């Protein structure tokens, strides 16, 4: 193994809780992580959880099949609210998909080594979230089978898509993001796949992992290329983290609708995306470390750091809300003023105030060290933030549309069974993919964890938690 470079900030970084619990060796790390995948005894809990997730995925399939059979009219959308749940879900999922790449790429470039134990499943989460997100722009179309008309493919009609349309930019932004995220995740998996190949006791596992490992032998030249590739990909992915949600925010800010037409949207959307992304990482990491006994690898240090990022991005989002209201007043534009007033006091006011509660007020608890240190507290907070971020997109989309310029065409939106079924169905799909992922792939990067080891041996042993049997 290569020599581990000592980071100058190491002393400060590890002054509280270590990023890996003491007492681990290379073998124990490898054993612990690969055993989850290579075990013969799949925990019964996995079957229960995966069963529920698969059932919900089936609900999604039914909802989508019915949608394609009947049309988007099965949802509660109408004129004027031509977008509602589908686009809300799209933006929400895309936002969630931000954390993974941010953790992998930006924190890698910033040499935040604590990211190591969470980046793998955060990246997986990104991919699955982007898959769920990508579903919505396609199925929300009136004629989804023609979705490829949004792509600039050569055709006999010589018709290009409209490059002025932000929906067109979306296609590029999301598909690029999905591609780079997938590559990044997969490249990062290769050394671990090789480990699994070597440790698999079944022929089938050896073949499958062997094929996926692309002939990785761990030679120096492999490591050299690996490091180059992952740095390059990290460099590519970093601007994408910012660009994808910026472009998604253009879906709204390009329009002339009060409540959409705002210049603050790009930064505010990106911050919101990171906010919800970290919330989702927490939502997943906390039960996972508990269930698989991974407290040694995903330590409280990780949770605290993520809580701090959430607090920071949450404050940016709060600033966004404030600026929205301020600009509505400052512009003294009738329509803008009415829009913000209607948000706060109109028929969707309960949703708006719950959003403020979830996204602004409750997360202020994160200022307290005790809250940041409380695992159940963080779990609940992450759920609250996820809900709040979903509400934020709902509020932006629906309350802006439902009362715009001419009072004669005001209307309301009420979700139907199928709206909920599609949304909950994607939650099912997301969870089901996660279940498959933790069962068949190492959810924590084995080789990267091993790079942390010497550090833990030399570091302090202050708050070492009790070791659990593997």
């Amino acid at each position, binding site marked *: 193994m290569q020599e581990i470079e000592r980071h100058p900030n190491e002393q400060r970084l590890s002054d509280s809780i270590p990023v890996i619990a003491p007492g681990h060796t290379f073998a124990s790390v490898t054993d612990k992580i690969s055993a989850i995948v290579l075990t013969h005894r799949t925990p019964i809990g996995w079957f229960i959880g995966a069963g529920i997730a698969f059932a919900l995925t089936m609900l999604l399939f039914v909802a989508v099949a019915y949608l394609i059979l009947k049309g988007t009219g099965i949802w509660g959308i109408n004129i*004027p609210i031509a977008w509602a749940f589908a686009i809300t879900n799209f933006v929400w999922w895309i936002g969630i998909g931000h954390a993974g790449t941010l953790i992998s790429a930006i924190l890698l470039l910033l040499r935040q080594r604590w990211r190591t134990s969470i980046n793998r499943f955060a990246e997986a989460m990104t991919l699955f979230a982007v898959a769920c997100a990508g579903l919505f722009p396609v199925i929300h179309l009136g*004629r989804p089978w023609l979705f490829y008309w949004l792509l600039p493919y050569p055709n006999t009609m010589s018709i290009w898509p409209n490059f002025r349309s932000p929906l067109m930019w979306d296609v590029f932004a999301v598909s690029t993001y999905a591609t780079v995220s997938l590559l990044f995740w997969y490249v990062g998996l290769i050394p671990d796949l090789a480990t699994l190949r070597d440790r698999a006791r079944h022929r089938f596992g050896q073949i499958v992992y062997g094929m996926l490992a692309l002939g990785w032998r761990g030679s120096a030249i492999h490591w050299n290329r690996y490091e180059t590739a992952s740095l390059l990909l990290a460099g590519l992915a970093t601007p994408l983290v910012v660009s994808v949600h910026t472009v998604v925010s253009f879906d709204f800010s*390009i*329009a002339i609708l009060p409540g959409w037409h705002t210049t603050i949207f790009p930064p505010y959307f990106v911050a919101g995306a990171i906010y919800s992304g970290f919330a989702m990482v927490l939502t997943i990491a906390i039960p996972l470390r508990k269930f698989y006994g991974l407290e040694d690898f995903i330590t409280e240090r990780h949770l605290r750091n993520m809580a701090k990022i959430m607090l920071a991005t949450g404050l940016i989002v709060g600033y966004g809300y404030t600026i929205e209201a301020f600009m509505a007043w400052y512009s003294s534009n009738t329509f803008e003023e009415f829009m913000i007033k209607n948000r706060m006091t109109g028929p969707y006011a309960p949703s708006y105030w719950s959003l403020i509660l979830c996204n602004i007020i409750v997360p202020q608890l994160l200022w307290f060290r005790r809250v940041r240190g409380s695992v159940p507290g963080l779990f609940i907070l992450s759920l609250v933030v996820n809900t709040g971020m979903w509400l934020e997109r709902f509020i932006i989309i629906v309350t802006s549309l439902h009362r715009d310029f001419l009072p004669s065409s005001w209307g*309301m939106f009420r979700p139907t069974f199928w709206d909920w079924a599609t949304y909950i169905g994607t939650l099912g799909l997301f969870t089901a993919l996660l279940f498959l992922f933790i069962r068949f792939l190492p959810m924590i990067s084995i080789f990267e964890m091993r790079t942390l080891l010497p550090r833990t041996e030399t570091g302090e042993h202050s708050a070492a938690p009790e070791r659990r049997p593997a």
Partner: protein
Amino acid sequence: MEESAHQKNSKHRQTGPGKNLPVLNVPSESHRSILNLAARRVQRGNASPDEYWRSLDELADTPEFRAMLHREFPPAASEWNDPLSRRRFLHLMGASLALAGMTACTQQPAEYIVPYVKPPEGIIPGKPQYYATAMPFGGAATGLLVESREGRPIKIEGNPDHPASLGATDIFAQASLLTLYDPDRSQTVNYLGEISTWSAFLGEVGAALESQRGTQGAGLRILTETVVSPTLAAQLRELLRQFPAAKWHQYEAVNRDNAIVGAQLAFGQPMTPLYRFENADVILAVDSDFLSCGPGSLRYAREFARRRRVSTEQPLMNRLYVIESTPNSTGAVADHRLPLRPAEIENFVRAVAAALGVPSAGAAARPDNQEWFSALVRDLQNHRGRSLIIVGDEQPPFIHALAHAINQTLGNNGQTVQFIDPVEASPVEQMQSLRELAGEMEAGRVELLIILGGNPVHTAPADLNFAARLSKVRLRVHLGLYNDETSELCHWHIPESHYLESWSDARAFDGTASIIQPLILPLYQSKSAHELLAALTGQPDRSSYDLVRDYWKANYRNPSNKTAALPVAQNAGAVGGAANNRAQTTAIPAQSANAVTAPKANTSTQTPVTASTPSASPAPVAAGSPSPASDDFEKFWRKSLNDGVIAGSAFPLKTVTAASSQISSPNNGLRTTDYGHSITLLFRPDPAIYDGRFANNGWLQELPRPLTKLTWDNAALMSPSTATRLGVDYRVSSRGGERGEIHADVIELSYQGRSVRAPVWIVPGHADNCITVHLGYGRWRAGRAGNGAGFNANVLRSSDHQWTAPGVEIKRTGDTYQLACTQFHYNMEGREIVRAASLDEFQRNPKFAHEKVEEPTAHESLYPEYEYKGYAWGMAIDLNSCTGCNACVIACQAENNIPVVGREQVLRGRAMHWLRIDRYYKGAVHNPETFFQPLPCMHCEKAPCEVVCPVNATVHDTEGLNVMVYNRCVGTRYCSNNCPYKVRRFNFLLYQDWDSPSLRPMRNPEVSVRSRGVMEKCTYCVQRIQHAKIESEKENRTIRDGEVVTACQAACPTEAIVFGNINDHSSQVAKLKASPRNYGLLAELQTQPRTTYLAAVRNPNPEINHTPQEAMK
């Protein structure tokens, strides 16, 4: 495939020229005749028929065809079973390769199209033809020009030469097209609910008539609706001549009894007033919705609106005062409107009469609104001879009589009011007529009852107990368009021909007669009232065509003669036999014009198409009529058909004097009785489905009512304070919201022991302490669209209180009901949407419409403006003229194949109208000012929708149209989100009815039928623009102003909508856009809308202080 091929062929052969029904010498049962013809050919041994008859042979069940059916595939197909040969293999591979390369292409089945063997003269496929006809409705006819495409009527326009239309149409005329094609129309003769035949009917009714002959028809009763057809009237008189003891009753739920009796009271004879709004400076409408309903309303609306078209050059306009209980369109455009209860209205009119010195006015209490009242009286006095009092048909006769007296006192007679004899063939008090019939049925004196049209079982007032009494009649016959509630209780039901399917004639509000020409062969085995009556008078084989033509042959020299008789003797002599007769008298309906661009321009040069019949037929015109008189008649006939009006048939004006002394105060208990806080119930015809006859018409059911914007239901309308007093309310539901579902409290209305449950609807400006219910709903055998919609107000109606039921009891039920409303929010929220000013303000500041909004400067863009070198289409809508009558909405729906989505979808906020009419209120909630604003697509020059469409499905064209490319649309709906006017409509589901075969021929072939998942919107009737463009390019010129008329513009009675080329500065639209009143809606968004509005100008009396007392909610 075979079936469709057959249809195609038979259509070419039959309905192609068959719109001119008599062109062909084939009986109307087209299918049977084809069968017979084909069978005959086969029998003759015509073993190898030519291509043309191929599909008919299939139908005729030849051995070849049977073999083919048996084998499923054509003969060559069997060769696939042969062992694989090299040649076959290559064949297959070649085909596979070809198919692999074009998987997206479906293989089209081989279908043979057949050209006209002998094309009917003047018919060019793809070119519309226009035929003049008329629609009889509500006791008068409206002249129409009907657009026909390859033999199918597809669009109804007004006839500019017809005095009741002047080119405009109302919603009923527009929507009658859908009734023609309604798949729920009755299709066969029914006997006791079973399918029967016309000949079986003739047998049974003939026997019944024979038995009546002994008693001179003492047991025979005919019940019709209001008859304005001279031929039908003559036939009825002939029947009564043959059966002197028989009786003819007339009844319509929406009748004009009060006007007839009122005129009788005033003049001692039935007289019909004609109003001359062009001469009226001051108008007082007493509960009269003269702008949107009643005979002549289209003309009245036009003349009224012409006097309100103010400009800087012509800054004067008329002034309209309205007193009414139920807000209606006329009240909405009034300069002064006063909501009054019925008793107060009577008192008010009395007081006006007394103040103006009408002797018979009697004592009247001082009206509450003294200032209003005295200003009105002064205004009327100052405009003697230039004022007008007009009274609604629902007002009691005494008020009508009093109004006649007031008009006379003011010297308006002959100036703004003229009188003619009633246009009804027999003006009777219809409620009395029905009451007599019901009494006789009860007494068992009616043995044979023939109901010609109408649906009395549903529409008769409940106290007459019509349904129960009907069952006491021994033999009951009903002729009707639908197998409806009345048919259910009759022995025989005969399907009635639609007016677009059969010959008839009818008189308009001023007596002008029109020949009603059919546009298409009867779609079903239907009969017209003429044919049924002919059968009763012993001429069962006479067609409507013969009857109408014979009548006019006898009377054409005196077309305004009301009591002319059928030339019976002459007929008997002239007609040899039915078949022969048909052959001899066939002629073609004269074409009025065949160009869309200038419908009336080339009529003079056009000769009616005559000999396009198959060559076997005798030369039709010359054969039967050699005498010069016949030539005269032939000219008359063709001219009348061509023009759509019979020249000189308008009734002569009469000079009458209201004998004031005869006008005595009525003693009907309604007079001065103040009901205090008890609730008065008012019955009104529904603004869209009328008395229920249009209940199955989806276009009308889904048409938002002008003021309530309700669809698919009726409701108990009441004022806000009455609702508060009753403790009832309505709330916006989250489903669809203000543009969808409204939860209304349900109340139970009881009157004379009968009760119905009705949802509540609060109408600002409704008179307090009264509730309006609309007739026509609550039908149970209307058809798929009309069944179960709304509640039946007729249950509460009694024959003594047709329009007003005093002292109705109200009970809250605690239930709620979902009403489908397309615009609930009526407040403009302080936005400058409809801009309005008083005439005074306009005169002082003509540019008032531009002051309150920050308007964009000429050019605020980084990019250069596009230069429109050729045409630049634009529209101007005069908000001062719009009366919210909705004719444009239905015209647009008919022209552009806009689907009906149904109540459930309207509840969800998905109504599809491309053109909507927004209604806003301003001022006090108990009596607000009302504004209508028609909203088509704005065709913004900087259209927000275009930028955001990812697939370029909505783009701008070189003439400034915002074009929607349906084929390209994938349905992201972003365009709608970004449209500040929200004029785009999305096919959330498959709204278009693709399955009903009868609806297919109705659709405009020039407009795509949109499927699910596609956005659509107003196109400025681009198909009409293209049509005009082709015409102009053929003549190497540009399109003239007025050559392109959009569907909404064509229908508009008040000429509020003007369309044209704004690059042509002499065009009407360009001139309107140069008006200081012209403004762009939401122009501050820099959309540069091509549709602009002319701000409304009201003409309030400066003497009346107009301060709103209560703020709007």
